[in-house]
């Protein structure tokens, strides 16, 4: 009896494995690494919905991109690097055009692999900052800004409020971060800025396991009384930090988050008391854009989305949309450059490298005012674009102040050095052989 069960089980398992063969057709495969489970799901779900819905909208409204349908697959990573690698292996052989790891940890793992397997990695405003150096990392893209741009932008904004960079001398700036590849990414730049400008940098690490219990870190913050706080939080860490900050009555208008700590749920955890909490942003907030109406019409109302109607078009959802827009525009550019509609990963790389989203194109997409024009080049895979600050008004994010540029002069040489260091410590790092495609 048990024996037959065993045999039946083996046969079933065999058929399952055998059935899992990829199918090829006239389509563009865009895999999305998402995490709708685990401790980071709070941030991961709106992102995943936004990314998925924009691409679905292109399929429904335009029949894909230039007549070729997109095949959108989601691979659940749970923000776990191990599962991310597994997802990567899974999509690698399946005609994946571009990898969006959505986790700095997974990005770090995937960067060396992708360069060998020749699949571009689009880590939109996350991942390895040094990857902006296109000559060292031809296969990795991190537009519109790197983490170092983000950190320098926050310090720039603080300096503006203090009335000049010279007034930062002697100030104390606290940095509370998720103790993982993601949170540590900004430290080298902040340390450099602190020695250049003379402010004191105080670091408060939050281990991933304890991100929902930050009382000890905030106790220290209360004791140290930093003049400003900068946060690099993600998942359950950000709402907890905002709540703890309101508990110790930290002045919220001096509390800055990077763009990833700007979820609506993150700030809402502090409620009214979190008023004034601010984060960086590089795309519009709210639903008053024509493309949002299209998503509503073709995807949400058609029941093809998983989004909770109350959370439709919130800040992180819009960011997912922005990311998908970059993917779609990269595909479009690649089609233009290669002259074929069904492109492969190599074409996609060239497309991303020559990405040039103009004001007219934004208007065409119904994204006027949602994003700024952006352009990438062979050498610059990030672009160091302008950002702005959004402020929490107790209910929603409001634009506060104008778009401004991060401290590019400061960041650029550091990026070059970091890229050289990376290539050296990962020797033999392959030399760039990909030609600079131009139109």
């Amino acid at each position, binding site marked *: 009896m048990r024996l037959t069960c065993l045999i039946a089980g083996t046969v079933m398992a065999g058929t399952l494995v055998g059935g899992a063969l990829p199918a090829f057709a006239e389509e563009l495969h865009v895999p999305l690494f998402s995490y709708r489970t685990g401790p980071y799901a709070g941030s991961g779900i709106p992102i995943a919905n936004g990314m998925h819905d924009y691409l679905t909208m292109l399929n429904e409204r335009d029949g894909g991109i230039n007549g070729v349908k997109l095949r959108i697959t989601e691979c*659940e990573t749970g923000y776990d690097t191990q599962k991310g690698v597994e997802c990567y292996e*899974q999509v*690698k052989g399946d005609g994946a055009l571009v990898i969006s790891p959505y986790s700095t940890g997974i990005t770090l793992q995937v960067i060396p*692999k992708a360069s060998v397997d020749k699949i571009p990695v689009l880590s939109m405003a996350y991942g390895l900052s040094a990857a902006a150096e296109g000559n060292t990392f031809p296969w990795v893209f991190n537009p519109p800004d790197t983490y170092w741009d983000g950190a320098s932008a926050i310090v720039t904004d603080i300096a503006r409020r203090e009335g000049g960079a010279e007034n930062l001398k002697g100030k104390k700036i606290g940095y509370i971060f998720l*103790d993982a590849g993601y949170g*540590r990414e900004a430290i080298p730049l902040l340390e450099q800025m602190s020695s250049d400008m003379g402010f004191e940098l105080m670091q408060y690490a939050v281990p*991933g396991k304890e991100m929902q219990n930050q009382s000890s870190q905030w106790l220290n913050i209360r004791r140290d009384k930093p003049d400003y706080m900068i946060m690099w939080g993600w998942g359950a860490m950000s709402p907890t930090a905002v709540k703890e900050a309101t508990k110790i009555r930290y002045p919220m208008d001096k509390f800055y988050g990077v763009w990833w700590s700007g979820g609506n749920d993150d700030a809402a955890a502090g409620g009214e008391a979190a008023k004034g909490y601010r984060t960086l942003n590089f795309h519009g907030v709210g639903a008053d854009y024509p493309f949002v109406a299209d998503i509503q019409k073709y995807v949400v109302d058609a029941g093809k989305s*998983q989004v909770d109607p109350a959370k439709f078009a919130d800040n992180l959802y819009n960011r997912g949309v922005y990311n998908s827009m970059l993917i779609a525009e990269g595909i479009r550019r690649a089609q233009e450059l290669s002259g074929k509609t069904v492109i492969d990963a190599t074409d996609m790389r060239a497309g991303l490298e020559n990405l040039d989203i103009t004001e007219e194109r934004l208007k065409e997409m119904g994204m006027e005012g949602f994003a700024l024009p952006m352009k990438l080049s062979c050498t610059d895979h990030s672009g160091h674009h302008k950002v702005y600050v959004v402020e929490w008004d107790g209910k929603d994010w409001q634009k506060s102040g104008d778009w401004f540029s991060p401290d590019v002069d400061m960041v650029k040489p550091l990026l070059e050095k970091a890229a050289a260091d990376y290539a050296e410590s990962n020797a033999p790092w392959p030399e760039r052989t990909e030609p600079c495609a131009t139109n």
Partner: protein
Amino acid sequence: MLYRESGQYKTSYIADQAIFPIREDRVGMVLIGLVALVIPFVASDFFLNAIMTPFLILALAAIGLNILTGYAGQLSLGTGAFMGVGAYSCYKLTTIFPETNIVILVLLSGLFSAGIGVIFGLPSLRIKGLYLAVTTLAAQFFLEWCFIRIPWLYNYNASGAIEVPERRGFGDIVLTGPAAGAMTQYFIVLGIVVVVTLAVKNIVRGRIGRQWMMIRDMDIAAELMGVRPLTAKLSAFAVSSYLCGVAGAMFIFFYLGAAEPSAFSITLSFQILFMVILGGLGSLVGSFFGAAFIWGLPIVLRAGLPAIGIGIGAETVFHIATMIVGALIIFFLIVEPHGLARLWSLGKEKMRVWPFPYA
């Protein structure tokens, strides 16, 4: 049926003491060996990279934990951390001695893990059972803390991760790093796992292994009969940690390619503990069964469910896989508490007495 032993006579002690005394077992092993050698030539890179290689590595880690928990009866929750010690020491070794063959370094790095294991095994001389589990849990947290807080361990890398450099060997074949072939890595892992498993098999059926089992079954009686608990328990910790260390080093160098400290978290420890419990405590073949089950099932479900036309979201598949694995663990613990290995040996018994099974 298949197992017809009649006519197989053992005429010497050597034949009687063989690892596989029955001819059918030997034939089976040869067949499994052939399949293992043929797989890389027929399977896809995904199958090798994401299923076979990690399965073999985790099976070795499960054998490591099985030595400690299954054979010597010392409950441990620090497996993940001991694997981490192996991985980090291998990383340090290869950055200090870049010319040395990585396979040698992987095998050496287990020694560091063994040393750490012995230190954290010292409390086992005084405390037992769940209390010992708590001290190994402390080892887990302490070592994980070290991986995060001692930057020397990861060569002051800004992101706190260890990245596997490219290493060549055996006549300029790329063994590690992103350019390494799936087949190369599979064969290295297979080689190490087979050799180490054979060595362990001979340890557990010899004097040392019997000491472990005596300690497990009744430590006072064992002591009265002349087994020294100090050497027996600490040698179990040493061998177990050595195996875990080697597995951890291989996990990073031949599978993941880079690792953050969180790769060696308590989750990994539990995963391996489940493999051991489900596979069968005190059984080497059970470790392989357990590893295949815990590692393979979610992947098969995730790749298989959409392929047979059940089109559900990625995260639903994930939830379902977790639920099925959880339900199966409970099911097996009720139906067959001795794990898959016991199921296998029952099946074998039945085949041996075919057509009149009574077991």
